[in-house]
């Protein structure tokens, strides 16, 4: 009979190499948490230099705090190290999902972020001092310090390379943090073999490791509910916010000093150049309108068009109709978006209505008229949005536009979807409106088109609000000129019972793919 023999004592050198590998892994993980927090902070809160410095500073000082606290940890060092790894795995691993979930749901995101940074930093700060003490008996002090610290810094290099090149592009922030947590937990588990003889109650310790590994694996599986891997691959920048509302998938990505909003995968704006789009959408209609007191914004739940509207001092009341409460909540609750729209939706002059624009207009009392109407729907790529570009809709718009009023309608790209663009103009004309199409260059979108309409014939407007970043009275007339590659093409009228625009649009964009 042979009894299970205790693990043959490894050659001391091999075991030491293994322990240094563990140090390398641990320090790589530590750096990735730091980078993830820094990236999230700069994405979410904007002003990347300040946020990044703040997070790094906090994180490093928290590590210092951890190192200082390590003096109160005594006895059972190996076991405590395993527990520490499990704590880092849980807190660090779930930090990004937690931030992802709180972002946009809590009023004060910053305290949550900083508390997490301090907590993870402190735990990570405990790691190296404990390790040094565990290895104290095995190596001479000068060799120990030299080796551990050099491996630690090497780990930092590995982490700093993996994070931007492999982890974030492949996994996204949420999965990166969970995967790194998993590495910490596995290091903990591995340590129970490397230092088996120093750990009492081994099965129980290993069971705990197993439980944390399972939790993190569950987290990885559940991460699909936040963002799917396929979705991460779809966007060129990391996703920092994503919600499936009742109507659409709302995704915010951030990187390279700006952030972007996507609805169902289609870019709505980039913080870099949205001002060009929104100035072009809003101000020509204000210049064309006889009065500017009652304003209606249809779509545009991001609040950016309302921001431009509120620059006009004559405006007394703005009604914003956007079907999706999740969109208007995003405009108010998410700091980076609220910063960009200047808190427009909180202005006392603004009333937010979450309703289908067609149903809302149809239910409006006949006498209710608006001086300026801004129509900012997503492009007509589905039948449910396409209905908002039909004669039926534009007749309702006509009926609720003041006789002296003006409306501007985002009309997709006259360059990339030329027939679609002119189909919108044709449809507006059929609804009895006078149309002046115009276009503007918005780098994120390309050449973008709009339709300015009134109930009476009118000339190209002038007298823009002074002090705009993009538009001025000097450049405005040029926007109404269409070169040969943009000029009018024949198109059918878009009606509820043909939705021809959706077919045009799909054909034109498919050609580009």
């Amino acid at each position, binding site marked *: 009979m042979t009894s299970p023999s205790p693990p043959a004592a490894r050659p001391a050198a091999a075991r030491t190499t293994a322990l240094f590998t563990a140090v390398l892994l641990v320090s790589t993980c530590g750096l990735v948490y730091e980078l993830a927090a820094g990236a999230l902070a700069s994405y979410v809160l904007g002003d990347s230099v300040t946020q990044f410095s703040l997070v790094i500073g906090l994180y490093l000082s928290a590590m210092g705090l951890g190192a200082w606290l390590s003096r109160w940890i005594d006895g059972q060092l190996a076991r405590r190290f395993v527990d520490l790894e499990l704590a880092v795995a849980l807190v660090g691993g779930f930090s990004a999902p937690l931030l992802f979930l709180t972002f946009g749901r809590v009023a004060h995101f910053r305290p949550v972020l900083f508390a997490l940074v301090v907590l993870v930093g402190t735990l990570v700060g405990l790691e190296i001092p404990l390790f040094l003490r565990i290895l104290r008996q095995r190596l001479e002090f000068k060799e120990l310090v030299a080796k551990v610290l050099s491996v630690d810094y090497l780990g930092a290099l590995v982490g700093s390379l993996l994070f931007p090149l492999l982890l974030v592009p492949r996994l996204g922030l949420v999965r990166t943090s969970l995967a790194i947590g998993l590495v910490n937990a596995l290091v903990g588990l591995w340590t129970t073999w490397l230092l088996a003889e120093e750990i009492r109650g081994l099965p129980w310790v290993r069971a705990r490791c197993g439980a944390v590994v399972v939790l993190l694996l569950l987290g990885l599986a559940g991460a699909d509910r936040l963002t799917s891997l396929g979705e991460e691959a779809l966007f060129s920048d990391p996703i920092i916010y994503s919600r499936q509302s*009742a*109507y659409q998938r709302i995704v915010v990505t951030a990187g390279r000093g700006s952030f972007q909003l996507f609805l169902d995968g289609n870019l709505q704006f980039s913080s870099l150049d949205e001002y060009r789009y929104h100035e072009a959408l809003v101000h020509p209609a204000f210049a064309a309108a006889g009065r500017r007191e009652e304003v209606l914004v249809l779509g545009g739940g991001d609040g950016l068009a309302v921001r431009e509207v509120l620059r006009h001092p004559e405006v007394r009341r703005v009604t914003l109709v956007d079907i999706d409460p999740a969109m208007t909540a995003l405009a108010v609750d998410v700091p980076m978006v609220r910063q960009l729209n200047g808190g427009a939706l909180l202005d006392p002059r603004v009333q937010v209505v979450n*309703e*289908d624009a*067609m*149903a809302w207009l*149809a*239910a409006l009392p006949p006498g209710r008229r608006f001086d300026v109407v801004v129509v900012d729907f997503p492009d007509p790529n*589905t*039948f449910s949005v396409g*209905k908002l570009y*039909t*004669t*039926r809709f534009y007749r309702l718009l006509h009926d609720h536009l003041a006789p002296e009023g003006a409306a501007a309608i985002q009309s997709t790209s006259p360059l990339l979807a030329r027939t679609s663009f002119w189909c919108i103009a044709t449809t507006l004309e059929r609804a009895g409106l006078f149309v002046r199409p115009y276009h503007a260059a918005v780098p994120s979108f390309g050449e973008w088109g709009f339709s300015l309409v009134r109930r009476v014939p009118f000339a190209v407007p002038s007298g823009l609000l002074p002090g705009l970043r993009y538009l001025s009275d000097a450049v405005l007339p040029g926007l109404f000129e269409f070169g040969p590659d943009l000029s009018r093409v024949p198109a059918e009228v878009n*009606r*509820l*019972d*043909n*939705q021809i625009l*959706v077919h045009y649009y799909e054909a034109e964009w498919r050609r580009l793919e």
Partner: protein
Amino acid sequence: MTRLSRRELLLTFLGPLVAAGCRSGRAPALPFEGTVAGADDGLGHRLRQAAGPEPARSSRAEVVVVGGGLAGLSAAWRLSRAGLEDYRVLELGAAPGGTSVGGTGPVTAFPWGAHYLPCPQPHARAVELLAEELGAARRGSDGRLVFDEAQLCRAPQERVFVGDRWYEGLYPRAGATARDREELELFQAEVRRLCALRDARGRRAFAVPMAHGSDDADLTALDRISMAEWLETRGLRGERIRWFVEYGCRDDYGLGLADTSAWAALHYHASRTDDGGPDDLLTWPEGNARIVAHLARRAGPRLATGALVTSVRPLARGAEVVVAPAGGGPAERITAGQVVLAVPRTVAARLLPHPRLQAEARAFEAGAWLVANLGLRRRPRSRGFPEAWDNVLHGSRSLGYVVATHQVDRHGGPPGATVWTWYLSLTARDAGEAHRWLLGLSWREAAELVVADLRRAHPDIEQCIERLDVWRWGHAMIRPRPGFVFGPLRRGAAEPLGDVHFAHTDLSGLPLAEEAQWHGIRAAEEILARRRVRTDSLL
């Protein structure tokens, strides 16, 4: 009837493709509730045993209309327009409408039967008038009707599920061979030719109402052959073209290709447009119950529901109607100058047991239908082309489903909630057998049929259903088998018997709202003529 196993049930009602996908053994309990209803249950059949108590009271009316479906209500509408206001309409059901009834729920109204009205051609004056009264059309400056965009069926109108995904349109183009496409082209060319064809008197080959169409012998000869034979003589033998054409037969007539008159089948395709293009349709969440509600409002208190007529007797002058509350109570004898019997011929022959009517009743055959309304809390998964108004499953014997909220921008439920109305016409050759099958069907069996049918296209449909209600129509719609439409019995059936006039869509041999309206107006105008009321005909 012996109990069918689950698989046999699917095979019988929905065909081999749906049955093949069925899990064997007893299915787990369905995670939703519902009820079963049907016009034929109880009430209608009480007619057969009705000995008729001696009426306790008597009254008089100038005209009594028996039957509050579209035909009866249209007769009343026509009388009112001519200033004849002393009439009564007696409807057996709890609500008027016949096969155009609808229902209501927290999310939306929905149809239980007929659910659209094709935009009329200018020759159909009465239908045009109706559309104007409904606020669905107005007269344009050129004198032609302009239809309200909001009430025209929105795009996308149709999609078809083939293989594993949905495609736009009704014809299953996916996977069609060159020969399939050629056959479709041939069929469409023939339809275009028939749409453009005018006879020596300038009438369309096929028209709605059919009375406006040609009765040339070479066209009516099409009624003597089946649609299967017609396709065969043109060499159209492919599965796809046959499925496509048969879908029309099942949808409008509840018949298979071999049992449908070729004239009737071609009428479906070639009666409504000049160019064979797709029809423009008017539709509403509650379907044709919208029309019923309008006509019922016009009739006002003269319309009585829950009124069980037990006999109609022609007198030397005028006629006598005995009616009792359907829920029980004393009967009433109404003596009228004229009576309009706006009920199916089979019912007419029971109320008025005249040898002519009884002979006709044997030739008039109505098909059985199963209709289900699915209240959905959210839309199920769906691959390919997005949801349309009419959603058809290739390879199933069901007719697919229509979406009640297709025409509305705002409804009473959470986003994504809706009601789907699923239709199945029982095309069994023996209408009696189909009827017995249908009445033997429990709620659970019916619900399983619906779920099994939809699961192919929507794997998670069961989890999306809030409730599922079923209506069993024992005798839903007249079936135009070969020889019926232009046979002697159908053509003579509209002739009055003394002062009893007849109105019902089955007098056309085609189950269409416009035909019901036409016969209602015709019967009313016959009465107006007898009473020497001067009025221009709306026909």
